[in-house]
């Protein structure tokens, strides 16, 4: 069975693109539409990795990362932030909250896969 990766993003098109790329590379995907949705799902289900946008309604990416690290089930999973170039300070904030790595939007599918392979080891 492939590894299970959650993609949390309020943009349906990004989720769609990420999910497609992941599935094509043999990963299983669970989607979340915002931080709150993601955290609820992560409290109930064990995943191997989280890909999260930073700007989301309800709960943003930083809140989500903190929530995951404070939880139990997925405490140690790698978390990769999807950021944009204008968010350097947010990147540092995310790192401090416990993110493992980041990828800068826009990215190509192969860049996404390279990052995932890297953090999943």
């Amino acid at each position, binding site marked *: 069975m492939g590894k299970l990766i959650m993609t949390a993003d309020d*943009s349906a098109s990004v989720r769609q693109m990420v999910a497609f790329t992941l599935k094509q590379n043999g990963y299983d995907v669970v989607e979340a539409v915002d931080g709150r949705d993601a955290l609820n799902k992560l409290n109930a289900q064990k995943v191997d990795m989280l890909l999260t946008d930073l700007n989301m309604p309800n709960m943003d990416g930083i809140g989500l990362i903190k929530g995951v690290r404070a939880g139990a089930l997925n405490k140690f999973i*790698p978390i990769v932030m999807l950021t944009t170039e204008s968010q350097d300070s947010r990147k540092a904030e995310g790192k401090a909250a416990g993110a493992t790595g980041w*990828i800068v939007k826009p*990215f190509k599918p192969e860049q996404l896969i390279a990052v995932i392979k890297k953090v999943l080891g």
Partner: protein
Amino acid sequence: MMEEAIATYREEAGELLAELETSLLDLEETPDDSDLINRVFRAMHTIKGSGAMFGFDEIAAFTHEVETVFDMVRNGKMTVTKRLLDLTLKSRDHILYLLNSPVGEDIDRAAGDEIIVGLRQLVPHDDLPQKGSDVIPAIELPELSEDELAQECTWRIRFRPAPNILMCGTNPISLINELRSLGTAHVVAQFDEIPLLDELAGENCYIYWDIILTTSRGEDAIRDVFIFVEDDCDIRIELIDSSGLIDREQGYKKLGDILVERGDLSPVEMQKVLLLQKRFGEILVEQGIVTPEKVQSALVEQQHVKSVRKERSEAPQQEAAASIRVPAERLDQLINLVGEMVTVQAHLSQVSLAGGDSTYIAISEEVERLTNELRDTALNIRMLPIGSTFSKFKRLVRDLSQELGKEIEMETFGAETELDKTVIEKLNDPLVHIIRNSIDHGIESPEARKAAGKSSVGTVYLGAEHSGDSVLITIRDDGAGLDRDAIRAKAIERGLLSANIDASDREIYAQIFAPGFSTAAKVTSVSGRGVGMDVVKRGIDGLRGSIGVDSVRGSGTTITLKIPLTLAIIDSLLVKIGKDHFVLPLAAVEECVELTREDIKNSHGRNLANVRGAIIPYISLREHFAIGDQCPEIEQIVIADIHGTKVGFVVDNVVGEHQTVIKSLGKMYRDVKGVSGATILGDGTVALILDMGMLLHMVEQLEQPPCAGGAR
């Protein structure tokens, strides 16, 4: 799929723009509502981010400007004004316009530029964003081509992770494994910072690592491994050895120097210990100056660099002598000379044996041994891997399948198989025809394949492998297979097969090689005119090879070419008829049996021999070549397999195996049928090399009734 995501993006952006409009209008009422400001910012942000991902670069670039302004509003550097809202609403309309313009169409940039200029005017001057900061690439994928050209260096890396590294989801081991994948690495873990059990926090990482890595990928590649952790972890990367260093000695620094360089030992301590005149590392550990792991790590470094340097100093000499370029004609000349030598040597052996002087016999045996080695070595020089031809066919398959609207992949194996250079050149045409046939007739259209329950993508396998003195080349497709009945019907129609005889599959399939034979209903630009396979047969015959066809209806056809490794010298069977010697290529010979007068009488003049129950037709070479001498009491039949047909050749006497150096017959005799060349025997006499396939063909033609014969 990408189109789907793009459609979703258009839809989503449309919704966001509608939401944006509402928010902007609300903002006009309550300009200080930070929630509304955030909403506007987020909408812009998503439109920009996703737009860039799906190739809407215009939208991304334009929205970036608007987003920048709203980022300032969000951070309190600007206030919401009527003018700002006007411009933002205009921006929203412009984005909608960009969103709906078909890809590739010229767009109205002026309107967008006007809005941007307006927005920039609103921005306080010292906060104007710097131009050119727009695009920061995402993580760079390593560029192999450039890096790999770089010279090989050895690096000393000390990786001391932040204690909370595990809490950030990073596995240090996978980072170390990533380093290993860059080159040759030796890793030593350091445990000296692990605290006592009651002070130990289970979630922290106390171990750190020394890694000695030899790689040609450069420092950036190493830094890239640590890209996500370099801010929090202590990472030291030092160059300790490189292939470019003049320092060519194989030894490496002393243990003490390494430890001092690493900062694990002070120079003063080193001097003190050195005075003790014992093994340096042992003293350091004994006295507790340095931990055993650190000494171990330094020793590993010493060993690593020593072995890398040793390899390096040995490598260049080998490389220098690895290959030289020689004109092909010089090699041909060498082969010719070796051929002459083999002939002379055979003569020498014969003469010395006849003389009976043991000294000469010993010398001639020595010469024979050396000649054989020389022959093998000389022939080997002309051998080339067949792979270069294979890659040409990949292109052929790609182009043809596109032309015919089929989906075909090509797989190859045994590209490293070596064959004589001239053989490879002569194989080209036959292979082109076979592969064309497979693509055109063999592999079905994607629809037909799906209907037959197969994958829509057809595959053509091309493989080569050694088999004794020959190379087997296999061309296999997973197409429709040969239509046995259609071929049989066509062959009977053309008089190639008799309707009353129940021919074997092999015999029927062999008909596809007859000149002008085609069962194709339609002639395409690729094949179907029936010229192809006949060319294949002639080409393979010219190489003294044989062709085998095997096919399963519905699941594909396999064509196997058996080609001798070389054209210059072949293994053959030397036979005698009367006073004359003849040579039969051994590759096709299966066995030799006796033919007695009794047998001839029993077959009632029909030239058929009964070999263990199988009836095999034979050709009397004595008759064929009109050799008039007395026929011996017991003759020999040499049974050969010629393109799937078993045929006997009757000779007086089988002399034995013979290394035959092939000589061409020259212009005068070039068109003589049934003889493909000649060779010079040890005693200086000439023996003709028989073309068994052609002999069979000639005899068949003689026996055909005139009407059927005329159809050829």
